[in-house]
């Protein structure tokens, strides 16, 4: 996958293209250098569509004549004092909604001085539920009379955690581990044998736990006074512990009662929209990305409870 439009040949829109994403996707398409191809994929036709795209690309790609690029909304700002009290110029840079290894749909408006985020503001989500259905996967059979097993629940939770870990490690530039997490996630989704998964997963957990560099780099990062638990490293550590705990349930065929439907134990201690600005202000760009990635799995406020989150 390309990290930026400049390196891309192919723009693939998987799933519905909702109102929120139309304009960003168009902007990205305009930035992709030729030869290029645009593909929209709905469920179950991934392979066919990608084959067509590769044929189009091999013929020199699609030659759509667009006008010039639109300005990317970069505006000059007034000066403001930085954290050392120096009056410096600021840039207003929106992050998201489409950024690699970034929670889908999240938009954070930042004010940057150099690479320090002086001010951050989170857009309220206007279309929550994009892709949310996917994470209710173990509950799909509900209503069809099929049984939901705790093994299935463990599997989808592992997938979710591995996905989040993969993003965190990718943002941290730990590509090797990120790729391994991604591979495990994909194998889990394909229904790989649980003994094999358990072995690989435990090896991955051990490797991350043993990496002094990792804990040195993430300690004391993104600590919040009262609402978010610990820092980036403790949040990561909690994920590792949870994975280690639930991986033994993979084989379990025990039936799960339906009253937990839709929520499971996936409660989030805090509403990210509420805490995020406070966590990001004063951090450097790389730290900010780590903090955002460490707050996953991303949940919209309605799913957590009241729109303001569980605490204040």
């Amino acid at each position: 996958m390309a990290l930026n439009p400049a390196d891309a040949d192919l723009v693939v829109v998987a799933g519905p293209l909702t109102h929120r994403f139309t304009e960003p996707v168009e902007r990205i398409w305009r930035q992709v250098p030729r030869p290029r191809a645009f593909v929209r994929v709905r469920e179950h036709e991934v392979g066919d569509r990608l084959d067509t795209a590769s044929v189009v690309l091999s013929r020199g790609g699609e030659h759509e004549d667009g006008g010039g690029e639109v300005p990317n909304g970069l505006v000059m700002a007034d000066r403001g004092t930085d954290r050392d009290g120096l009056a410096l110029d600021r840039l207003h840079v929106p992050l998201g909604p489409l950024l690699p290894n970034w929670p889908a749909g999240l938009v954070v408006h930042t004010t940057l001085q150099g690479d320090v985020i002086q001010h951050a503001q989170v857009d309220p989500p206007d279309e929550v539920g994009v892709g949310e259905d996917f994470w209710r996967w173990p509950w799909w059979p509900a209503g069809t009379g099929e049984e939901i097993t705790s093994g299935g629940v463990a599997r989808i939770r592992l997938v979710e955690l591995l996905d989040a870990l993969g993003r965190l490690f990718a943002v941290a530039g730990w590509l090797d581990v990120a790729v391994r997490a991604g591979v495990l996630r994909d194998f889990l989704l394909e229904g790989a044998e649980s003994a094999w998964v358990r072995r690989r997963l435990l090896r991955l957990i051990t490797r991350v736990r043993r990496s002094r560099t990792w804990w040195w780099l993430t300690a004391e990062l993104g600590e919040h006074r009262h609402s978010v638990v610990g820092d980036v490293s403790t949040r990561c550590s909690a994920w590792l512990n949870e994975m280690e705990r639930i991986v033994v349930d993979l084989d379990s065929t025990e039936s799960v009662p339906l009253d937990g439907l839709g929520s499971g134990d996936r409660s989030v201690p805090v509403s990210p929209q509420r805490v995020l600005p406070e966590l990001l202000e004063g951090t450097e760009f790389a730290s900010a990305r780590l903090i955002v990635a460490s707050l996953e799995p991303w949940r919209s406020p309605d799913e957590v409870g009241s729109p303001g989150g569980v605490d204040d």
Partner: protein
Amino acid sequence: MTEGTGWAVLVLPLALTAFALLALAADAVVEVRVAHARRSVAAAAADPWREVARLLVGQRRTTVAADGVLWRSGVVTVPLAALLAALVLPLGGFAAADPGVGIVWFNAMEILGWAALWTAGWGPNSPLSLIGGYRFVAQGMCYELPHMFALITAATGAGTLRVGGIVDAQAELWFVVWMPVGFVVYLISAAAMAFWGPFDAPLGRDLSGGVVAELSGVDRLVLLTGRWLLVVVAAGMAVPLFLGGGRGPLLPAWLWTLVKTALVLTFLLWSRRRFPTVRMERFTEVSWLVLLPLTILQALIVALVVLV
């Protein structure tokens, strides 16, 4: 040490590029194994060539209100700096040039990378690229002084700034044996100098590519090739500085140089996979409070040994 200018102009770029391509292919093969991709090793080894072809036919893009002059000159300077630094790189008993100030030349050409990366990040008028450029300057402030002291330690041990002289001075004992700190710091700073993992923050994934975020086509190819050349040159320089140059049993000197360079390069490739990206907000203190005093101490010890 024999010098040859023709060698420099014709063979050096080709040889370095070939070396870099081999390393790239090896890396691609490892990548396939890590990713459990259902592809053959041969197909993976051909990846670098496919990527070169893709970038050659790709459209070169520009951005709104870009500073084209600085942008493109920054991009071109990266491979240029690597090639100029490589001029003093000996292969066995042979080098493109062996000036009396070889070490200083090598260092000065590396530092061209500062200007190159910063202008390449500044040029496209894109915040993410710009932050990438800034990050490299911050990184430079951290790695450069320990790096200089590591170079100077080797020069002090040999009593000359000439690279050939440094190789000759290791006839009995390789410098790595009695300047281990210098060697380790050289490896760390060489990775940082080539913005190579774990010091790849200027091109970081969190910046969507950083300095290369807006580069496509040939421009992208030139900068990324330059980066690989820098890594190869940095690995190659470790050999005459600390690993006894072409010395070794049985094999001819040029082959030993290649073998040792490949070993150092393997270490650099491995460390990129092994460690997460080191952020300068954390590394600055380590560099200035730990590495710098250590290298000064190492230089002092070497100076005392040479004097006594």
